[in-house]
Each structure stands twice: as C-alpha cells, then as structure tokens.
C-alpha cells in the first residue's frame, strides 16, 4: 500500500481537523454573508452575523440552503465571486423544472481535483492504472471531476465519456483498462453487452470500478463484483457541493469517508430540521468549507444516511457515512402508503437472488393510484415451461405485497426492453397527473 501525499488530510488527528474546520467555517460564512444577498438576508432575519460562530456546533443555528434556492436564483444568484474569477460552470440537467448552475474558481477546481485524487487513491488506484472514464463529459460534473482527479494522481486517463457501449468494451479490452469510472447501472449494461459479444469482462485486467451518481444497493454490488470480476467502490458527490469526490469508500468497503476538511457534514431530522445525535439516521446536510465561487451553507442533500463514529480499520480519521440507500424525496406515496424504491429492490432480490432490471410505473386509474413493477426476465429465471414463469410471477407479487403492504401489479417483460440510460437508471415513471 502506497500513500499519496495528497491524502494526508484523510489521516489528520481529529482535534486538529476540528480546528481546521472551525477556522474554514468562519471564513466561508463571512464570505457568503458579504457576497451572497440571499444568505445575508436570511442571517439578518435571524439576528445572526458571522461572528456568532464560536464552536462548530453553532453551525446548527444557521439557515439551510435548499435546491429550490439554487433554482430560484438561477443562473448566477448564489455566486460569491465575480465572473472574472469564475473559470468553470457546470449545470445539473434538472429532471424537474429549471436546471441549476454551479461555478468554480481556479482554487475551487484545485480543491475538487485534490478530493477526486484522494477518492481514487482510497480505492487503490495508483499512477500505474489505466482509467476508463465513462462518466459523461460536459455540463455534468462526473466526467471532468473524475478526469482531473485521475490525471493528477498520475494514472493514464481514457476520456471516453458515456455511451457507445461497443466501443467502450473494445477500448477496455485493447487498452488494458484496470479501473473504470461510471454509473453502476451503466457498468452492468457493459457487462451484459460484453457477454452478448462473447467477451467475459472477468478475463480482462479490469480490477476496480468507482461507481456513483445514482443510489445502488449492496446486492447490486455483489452482482457487479461477481460478474465483472472487480471490486466495486461507491463514490458520493453532488453537483451543488462540488460534483463527485465528496465521499468515497476505502478498501474496507464499510461506509464512505467524507472529505470533511472541505465538506462539513451534519445529519438532521428531515421533518424538524433538528441536528440528530451522532450515529442516528437522517438527512445529510453539507457545508462547503473552502468553496470560493459558490459557498453553500447547510445545504440539504435530501440523501438519507447516518455518520459512523467508530474509527475505520484503514486508518483514515475522516468520518464515514453509511451508503445512501434512499433520498428523503424519492419516497413515493401510493394510495396513501409510503413506498421507497429500495423496498421494491429488496423484494425482487429476495425472490430472484440477484437484482433484475426493473421499472416502477405509476398511473392513475379511475382516480386511484396504480403501481406496476415491470421486471425483465433474466436467463437465470427463464424457463420453457409456462407454470415456472407463472410461479415466478406469483412469488414476485407476494413478496412485493408482503414488503410494501400494498397490492401492486407485476409484469414480466422481455430482456433489454426497459430503458437503459447511458447515465442514470430510470427506476420510476410517474404518469399520474400532478
């Protein structure tokens, strides 16, 4: 195991880290107060000013920032640097409503590169690796974030971007790729397609995958690791905060280390907004401690997690959070019952052993919500006998009924008929009128 010098903050003694965080927090709150009108207004409404921070715990008194604040001030309303100092803009596609825009100064890009470098290093990627970067390049932060991090580490970067699956497979084979960055669902798509082309990815030098940009389960990880013959690491990030590189799994694969020298974590009760005691599950709130162009104070991520306080065997002292299984806003309400897509995955997994591709279709029939789960038939479960498939269908209906407490329709569909996005898996299609 070699240690990259850039990873030193991962191992900072905890009291030293808290000092650093408090100093940076004071600086960033002062910057936002001076330069961002919306933030200043909210502070003043509460009778607060930047001098109110004598302790990290005082952060809890400050107002939250939400995604709608970014939308409402679209495009540049939360910028704290003049455009002359802004060197890069990224934007999130925004599945609903307006997109959001984020800005970086030179220093912001350096910080981003350094946390991506630390993230890749934590997954065991070194200068000797050949990294296939299949995150989309462009306004999406994934592509360029991973690119600069891997390049700074000294690895050989293949900036292939997303899409063109057959070429991805050829490049992986011909260039001796050892690590890949993409969404987990796209990697499974690559594995499936390689299989059709008669290529077993397990026989290639590929040994690590750094997967993010969408939530994925441990069962999906097992499928990726066994079918890809690799180790699969979860990376966390969001456009609003920086892009990928906020948190990463280490070799222990037990929670994601947060680069908390730059991104300060709190966990709150999503209903009341109160900070929860250490170790309790709630919504992750992040404060950017060093971002110049667009500092975000107490940004509500909507991601549900809890912080692990025990030291990690890898030796890193930066705190870990559990993998994100759900978001406080991905909850579906079906006929008054709360349903999380992760529950549906658990039921499908229980019946089939591995997670098939699936999609949730919501419709309104005669004023009532109707939910159908479409499940692709896999070679493992396909049979030439009708009764075997009907038995599978019955077991799926029963397992979903049992898990959700709700009768839902199940439809078996042909392989590869559900939309495979080159980026994020589209799990929910809501056709109910809003």
């Amino acid at each position, binding site marked *: 195991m070699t240690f990259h010098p850039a990873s030193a903050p991962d191992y900072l003694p905890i009291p030293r880290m808290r000092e650093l965080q408090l100093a940076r927090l004071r600086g960033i709150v002062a910057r936002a107060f001076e330069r961002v009108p919306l933030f200043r207004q909210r502070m003043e409404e509460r009778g607060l000013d930047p001098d109110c921070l004598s302790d990290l715990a005082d952060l809890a008194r400050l107002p939250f920032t939400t995604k709608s604040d970014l939308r409402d001030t679209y495009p540049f309303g939360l910028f704290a640097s003049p455009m002359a100092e802004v060197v890069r803009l990224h934007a999130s596609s925004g599945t609903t409503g307006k997109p959001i825009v984020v800005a970086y100064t030179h220093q912001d890009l350096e910080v981003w590169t350094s946390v991506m470098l630390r993230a890749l290093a934590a997954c065991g990627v070194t200068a000797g690796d050949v990294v296939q970067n299949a995150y989309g390049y462009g306004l999406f932060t994934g592509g360029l974030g991973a690119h600069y991090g891997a390049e700074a580490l000294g690895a050989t970067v293949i900036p292939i971007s997303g899409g063109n699956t057959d070429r991805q497979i050829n490049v992986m084979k011909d260039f001796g790729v050892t690590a890949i960055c993409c969404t987990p669902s796209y990697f499974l798509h690559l594995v499936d397609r390689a299989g059709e082309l008669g290529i077993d990815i397990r026989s290639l030098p590929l040994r690590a995958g750094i997967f993010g940009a969408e939530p994925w389960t441990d069962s999906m990880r097992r499928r990726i690791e066994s079918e890809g013959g690799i180790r699969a690491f979860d990376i966390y990030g969001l456009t609003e905060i920086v892009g990928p590189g906020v948190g990463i799994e280490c070799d222990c694969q037990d929670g994601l280390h947060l680069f908390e020298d730059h991104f300060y974590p709190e966990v709150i009760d999503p209903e009341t907004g109160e900070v929860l005691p250490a170790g309790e599950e709630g919504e992750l709130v992040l404060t950017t401690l060093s971002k110049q162009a667009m500092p975000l104070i107490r940004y509500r991520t909507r991601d549900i997690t809890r912080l692990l306080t025990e030291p990690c065997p890898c030796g890193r002292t930066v705190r870990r959070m559990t993998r994100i299984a759900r978001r406080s806003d991905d909850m579906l309400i079906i006929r008054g019952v709360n349903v999380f897509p992760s529950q549906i995955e658990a039921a499908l997994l229980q019946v089939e052993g591995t997670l098939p591709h699936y999609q949730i279709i919501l419709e309104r029939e005669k004023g009532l919500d109707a939910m159908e789960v479409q499940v692709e038939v896999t*070679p493992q479960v*396909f049979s030439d*006998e*009708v009764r075997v*498939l009907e038995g599978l269908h019955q077991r799926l209906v029963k397992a979903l009924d049992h898990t959700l407490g709700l009768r839902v329709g199940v439809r*078996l*569909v*042909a392989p*590869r008929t559900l939309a495979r996005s080159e980026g994020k898996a589209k799990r929910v299609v809501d056709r109910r009128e809003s």
Partner: protein
Amino acid sequence: MKIHQLSLFLENSPGKAMEPCRLLSASGVNIRTLTLADTQQFGILRLIVSDWERGRELLQAAGYIVNVTEVVAVEVDDRPGGLVRLLECLGSSGVNIEYMYAFTFGREGRAVLIFRFDRADVAIERLRASGINVLGALEL
C-alpha cells in the same frame, strides 16, 4: 435420440412472435416446427430449427434469452388412435409429460409429436421397446 428445442420469452403484444422468425429466416435457419404457449401477459415461443446452435447464437446476439431444452420427437400414424397407442405404452412408466405439440404436414400419413418429458431417457426406451419410431434431428 433427443432433439434440441429453443425457447424464447416473448411479451404478449402484436408482432412480437414475428421478429425472431424473421431473424432466423434472414440467416437461412429453417424453422421445422414451432408452438407458442401464451398467457395473458407473456408467451413462450418454442422452436425446432434446422441448426439449433446457429439459431441460438443469432437469437442471443439479438438480445433474446434462449433456453435450450431436449425434447423427444416421435412419429405415429396420422389416424384415429395413433396417439392413444403411444400414450398407453408410457402409461405405467411413471414418466410425466411436461408439454407436447404435434405437426402432421408433409409427412405422408404420419404425424410427428414433440414431447417434453420429465425423464426423457426412460420415455425413449419405453417407446422404442414398443416399436414406436423416435426421430433424430436429421429425420425431422
């Protein structure tokens, strides 16, 4: 003397059965016989083709899930009682028929039955012992 049968999962909607057939014909793989087992939601297309390995390859490359099953093809007289005689000789063997289908065209007074047995070897032995003609792939 078992025959390789290809089975495909199909969604129960218009045109779905045509695609695999067209795919096979375009590559010169001849369909000897086929049957479609369907439910309200989905269907299973079972095919016996001139070259099952090539057929499987083509279908898989097009993204179908293809199951290969060994079935037994039996020739009987195409007249009343032909099937009964065959079933009688299996009667006491304990062999179970999972499903079957038949075709009579182009066989000059003989019908061909395709069986999926739970224990094909026992069935073949029984049928042969009773003088019933079990066909190989070439004879189809």
